[in-house]
């Protein structure tokens, strides 16, 4: 995690370096060893991790991380805590199942991937943007509630609607297309697919945050009135932020339906919506690496909590309690999540006097 946190600051530094003609060193030379190490570990993971770790632990962490990243982008840079992101992901997943092939043949259209993939992403993005258009009329806690309300409505609608969403059962046997002769649902290909998507989404967020649009967005977050006075269209920036975040969430949703092979109303149900918030907050809302850290913690906890409990001689059916207590402790003691803890530790270390000179740096 430590290394991962540094990745971000380095990438940020790279962005600045590119704008600064004074620094000559090529960008890749400025990336510290730690990042190379993480990159190398992630890229060679299939050599030493089993299929479960690859497909479920990391694959799922990347997917949840991408969806939580879209929340982080809105909350961290836009100051808008949106609970609609899981629903956008769910809609993208549904569109893949409805337009592409699935086990529910009477509904699924069975189109080929180059049609359903862009359409699914577009529909989900459009939906997310529309919700955003409504949500930007509200602020703070009201934004949380309007998005939660629409998310709940979507959940109940999919559960009751049989003509399009196949109601309670949803869709099964949704498989990724056999592109380039690779079965993308196999653990190793899927691992790389989700890793690549996660890296792309991460890079996109880092880039956008540094681009004029991202900077304006952060300005609006800090003082919307001043930005409006400076001539920025506050509402348009916010809606655009929703649009961008929806694209990320939609990518996560497509991966999610491919990984599970199925989608049902519960996929984007209220607990799932809350989970995404939990992940983003536990990881930290300040930097784009936070959601991925949060997702990894969440996945490990929810996969292994029963085993941890049994190891301590406790009952496995109380695993929700562990997840709940962990989350509570995280938000209670560190409002900025795990990343916040790390920052504070770093700050304290920096304040400690040098053991040789006795000077405080």
């Amino acid at each position, binding site marked *: 995690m430590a290394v991962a946190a540094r990745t971000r600051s380095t990438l940020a530094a790279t962005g600045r370096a590119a704008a600064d003609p004074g620094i000559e060193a090529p960008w890749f030379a400025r990336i510290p060893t730690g990042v190379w190490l993480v990159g190398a570990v992630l890229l060679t993971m299939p050599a030493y991790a089993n299929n479960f770790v690859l497909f479920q632990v990391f694959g799922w962490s990347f997917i949840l991380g991408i969806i939580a990243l879209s929340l982080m982008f809105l909350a961290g840079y836009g100051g808008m805590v949106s609970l609609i992101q899981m629903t956008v992901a769910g809609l993208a997943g549904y569109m893949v199942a409805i337009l592409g092939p699935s086990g529910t043949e009477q509904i699924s259209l069975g189109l080929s991937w180059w049609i359903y993939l862009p359409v699914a992403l577009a529909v989900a993005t459009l939906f997310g943007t529309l919700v955003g258009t409504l949500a930007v009329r509200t602020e703070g806690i009201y934004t949380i509630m309007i998005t939660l309300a629409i998310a709940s409505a979507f959940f109940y609608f999919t559960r009751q609607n049989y003509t399009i969403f196949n109601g*309670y059962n949803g869709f099964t046997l949704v498989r990724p297309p056999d592109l380039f002769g690779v079965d993308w649902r196999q653990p190793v290909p899927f691992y790389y697919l989700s890793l690549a998507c996660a890296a792309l989404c991460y890079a996109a967020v880092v880039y956008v945050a540094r681009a004029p649009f991202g900077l304006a967005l952060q300005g609006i977050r800090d003082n919307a009135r001043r930005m409006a006075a400076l001539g920025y269209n506050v509402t348009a920036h916010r809606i655009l932020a929703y649009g961008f975040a929806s694209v990320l969430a939609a990518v996560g949703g497509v991966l999610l339906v491919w990984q599970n092979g199925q989608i049902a109303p519960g996929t984007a149900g209220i607990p799932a919506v809350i989970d995404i918030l939990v992940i983003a907050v536990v990881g930290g809302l300040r930097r784009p690496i936070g959601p991925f850290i949060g997702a990894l913690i969440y996945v490990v906890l929810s996969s292994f909590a029963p085993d941890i409990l049994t190891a301590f001689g406790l009952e496995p*059916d109380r695993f929700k309690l562990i997840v709940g207590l962990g989350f509570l402790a995280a938000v209670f003691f560190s409002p900025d999540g795990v990343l916040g803890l790390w920052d504070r530790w770093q700050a304290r270390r920096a304040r400690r006097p040098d053991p040789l000179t006795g000077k405080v740096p």
Partner: protein
Amino acid sequence: MIRLTRRHLLAAPAVLAGAAAARSPLAQAAPLKIGVLVTLDGPFAASGQDGLRGLELALRAAGHSVAGRRIETVVGPTDARPDVALRQARKLIEQDRVDFIIGPLSGSEGIALRDYAKTIPDRTIINGSSAALETTFIDPAPNFFRFITHGLQWGAGLGEYVVRSKGWRRIATVAADYSFGHTNFMGFAIDFCRAGGDIVRRFWVPLGQADFGSVVAQLPDDVDAIYLGLGGSDAINFLNQYLQAGARMNFIGGSAMADQTILSSRGRAREALIGTPTSGMISDENPDPAWQGFVRAYREGFPEGQRFASPSFFATSYFIAARAALAALDAVRGDLSDGQRAFQRALASLVLDTPLGAIRLDENRQAIGPVFVSEVTQRADGALYNRMVRRIDDVNQTLGLPIEEFRALGLPGRDTPNCARLRRSG
């Protein structure tokens, strides 16, 4: 609270392994790992715990070993959502490396696992208590076995019973608007309509609709009875509000309507059910000695207060699943090599003696077995139970209809089956 957990399941084999080792040299062979997929969170938590009790009973009876191999269990807890069930199943297979899975508990989990089973042809899934028709009717998996009858089969006999013995021909229905509600209703309706009954109105109540005030008010009063296909707290809420409205009408209970989770609920609502005919996989007071022996073992096996008054459908289902696994393992002498082909063949050809009677599988690996029609009755101590009034043997997936005719009825849904058409053909 019930305290039967994996710790207990694991503690017992540790003791027994010593005893078994003395008996047979084969006991040194690697232990056999069973993954148990069961719901331990959410509304089905209590049911899942009872399922574990049933499983434990079967394993205890076998001394936690089979064919000289010690049995270990790993529990994969779910919350009845299909994606959670899938993830837990993947963990059991890939991380815990279990030999086969017993489970899951609920219908949509079952459908998700049917499709997961196709991706792991060298492993086996033996269904726990999930009872969706689709699991073994549409595109079944060759390594997914279900030794219990499913939601549609449970309707068998009930319709004919209420028409012939009760003389109820005109009914309205109130049922939960999701797959189990549709399926269970369809099983009843096929039987009922063929016996000459008429359904004048169908109310489908969305899940999560807790207030039935306006549904109760709409129930017609010119019918002979009302079929109730609700379950869990929906059923309690409905009965409660029905009593408050002061109406009195004959009820016909779907399979989830009159099971022990409702008959043993706290409060007065359940009393509205006294005299209600219902049908399902089990009947609490089935005089069959096999069932009585099972009930006794259940009551002796777990202290009162940590179990239901009598084994629930979930305990029975997981018990039967474990018994099937043990019988097939015995038949192949614990040999799971060659991608479990021999084991799977043994499962497919089993004729299993269960507390309910003999059960065998059809070509889709779905149980053909008995279904019981019961009436809710009050014991002297005030407790409610299902008194068996009829037993229908060898109920198959299509309720005895030729497969083409059955397919023509359509899949379970809000409007299937068409009652008038069935009445004419029946």
